[in-house]
């Protein structure tokens, strides 16, 4: 009976991240005397859209079990931003090919990551770490230190809003829905959760473990690739450090959103909630006039508190 009760209540750990986000927004409004709540939300949804897109990939990777994490995301963002901008080369008709090229570059890195894991039999952390170093250099070489501006149409599209709702947020929402559907309703999605709980059990149940892992790293790379292109378009051109913050941010968002670090349980809504929360908490601290150092420090303490309260999840109960 207890187990059932616990599962029902614990079934929505992502609710907390939304509550946190709402609280942070409320506090900001109070600090700003009720001014600009809408604008804050628009900004939150815009920036969270980027975070959500990359974090969805990271979430899939982390869900495949302990030790699985994609450290190559920042370098992929840098690379795909450059690839997208160079392919588009300020010509609006090249917009679609540019996006495809960026996604393909990310997917290629994902495949390479899996190849390293499989062929060298090394932990995913080391594989994605080594590939991130190489990819960074490729990004530098491809970008040649130049910032290419996005085509005007692309820049307009990525910052387009309708009634305060950013187009990007709609795209990220759609991506989240697709990922949620994939996890729930496809053999691949079920396999992700299965191998995260136990690779051995999944294999004995006849699920294809290796194909699932390959696809997962590929998807993570592709999503980072897409995000790289969008960020470059949004911020007026590609830059090498555009992905830097996403290394730690994606892991933090995934964990705070209620995805199990030990694998097997993903939480798609939690990614949205945690992304908004991470943005709004900074906004709140800003509005309260907190120094930037204290802001970062509090972010860290929140991450530690969330994981410590969430508790030591043993892989096998």
């Amino acid at each position, binding site marked *: 009976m207890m187990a059932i009760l616990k599962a029902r209540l614990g079934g929505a750990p992502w609710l907390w991240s939304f509550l946190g986000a709402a609280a942070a927004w409320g506090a900001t409004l109070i600090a700003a005397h009720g001014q600009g709540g809408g604008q804050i939300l628009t900004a939150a949804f815009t920036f969270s859209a980027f975070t959500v897109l990359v974090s969805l990939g990271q979430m899939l990777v982390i869900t495949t079990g302990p030790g699985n*994490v994609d450290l190559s995301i920042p370098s992929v963002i840098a690379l795909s931003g450059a690839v997208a901008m160079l392919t588009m080369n300020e010509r609006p008709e090249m917009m679609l090919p540019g996006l495809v090229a960026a996604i393909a570059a990310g997917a290629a890195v994902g495949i390479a990551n899996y190849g390293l894991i499989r062929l060298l039999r090394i*932990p995913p952390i*080391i594989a994605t770490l080594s590939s991130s170093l190489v990819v960074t250099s490729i990004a530098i070489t491809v970008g040649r230190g130049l910032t290419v501006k996005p085509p005007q149409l692309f820049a307009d599209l990525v910052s387009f809003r309708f009634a305060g709702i950013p187009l990007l947020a709609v795209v990220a929402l759609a991506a989240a829905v697709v990922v949620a559907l994939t996890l729930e309703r496809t053999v691949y999605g079920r396999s992700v959760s299965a191998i995260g709980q136990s690779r051995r059990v999944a294999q004995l149940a006849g699920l294809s473990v290796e194909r699932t892992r390959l696809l997962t790293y590929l998807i993570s790379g592709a999503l980072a690739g897409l995000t790289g292109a969008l960020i470059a378009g949004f911020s007026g051109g590609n830059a090498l450090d555009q992905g830097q913050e996403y290394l*730690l941010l994606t892991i933090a968002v995934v964990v705070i959103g209620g995805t199990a670090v030990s694998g097997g349980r993903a939480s798609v809504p939690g990614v949205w909630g945690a992304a908004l929360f991470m943005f709004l908490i900074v906004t709140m601290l800003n509005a309260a006039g907190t120094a930037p150092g204290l802001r970062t420090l509090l972010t*860290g303490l929140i991450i530690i508190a969330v994981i410590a309260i969430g508790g030591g999840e043993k892989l096998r109960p």
Partner: protein
Amino acid sequence: MTSRRLLVLAERLLPALTLALLLAAIFHQQPRAMSYFGLNLLLNLAVPIVFATLAQMVVIAVNDLDLSIGAYVSLVACIGATLLVQTPWLGVLALLGAVVLYAAVGALIAWRGLPSIVVTLGLSFVWLGLAVTVLPTPGGHAPAWLATTMGWKPPLAPLALWIAAVVSLVGWFAVTRSSLGVVLRGAGGNARSVARAGWSLMAIRVAVYATAGILGLLSGLSLLGLTTSGDANIASRYTLISIASVILGGASFVGGRVFPVGAVLGAMTLTLAASFLTFMRISPDWQVGAQGLILIAVLAIRAVLARGKEAAP
């Protein structure tokens, strides 16, 4: 000697061979580097990386991973460039406090059975926040004694080589030879068996994280001595570099298989990889990439050796 033993030997010598090969290539390209001055230039930035690597190594020895070491080293450098100069006693107190906080995080991880990777991820934000608070914009200056120490030119070989040698020896003794080092590696190899023999896994983790804190302290101070000014992001790359160096040194992520001498060699290899390209007249764009490629190459060789070992009788 059986082929199996030969393969094991090759595996153990791999870090040294990698470094030797890299040095040989540099000397071949630029014979002038083979001097006191040249070596000093090539290697002095290795010192802080060596300390950060050893900090990462003790954490990896118990199957944990520390994603906060880079931010921590930055924080130490920032405290060193400000408080330690302005109010020395407060600076010392702040540094000690950081070590205690590190140990407390170790206790938290052991107590709640938390994944170290997420906790240290959060911790890295804490260090960074503190560093930005202490030193909001790059600047400050190193205490004079620190700059003098790091600028010292000892006889025979540059300071970096002396430090690397001494640290290797101490590390080898403490981790590989000493009776406490055995318990440390044992906890990584089979924690249950160590606990069954009556050891406290909590005490082991606290000691591990405190040691990491002290080694990170040495890393931050030596870095400050070399650069003479602080920056909250000065060592953010150290997190990944230290993990890579430990692995390059022959260690595995799990199972308590760590090698201090290898780790020091790995740290020097990755430091040199950057300079190497300059000498080879390859674009500096590939500095980071070269580190990655060396890592992949060494891991590939190791995978081949491991497969050979499985096949050998």
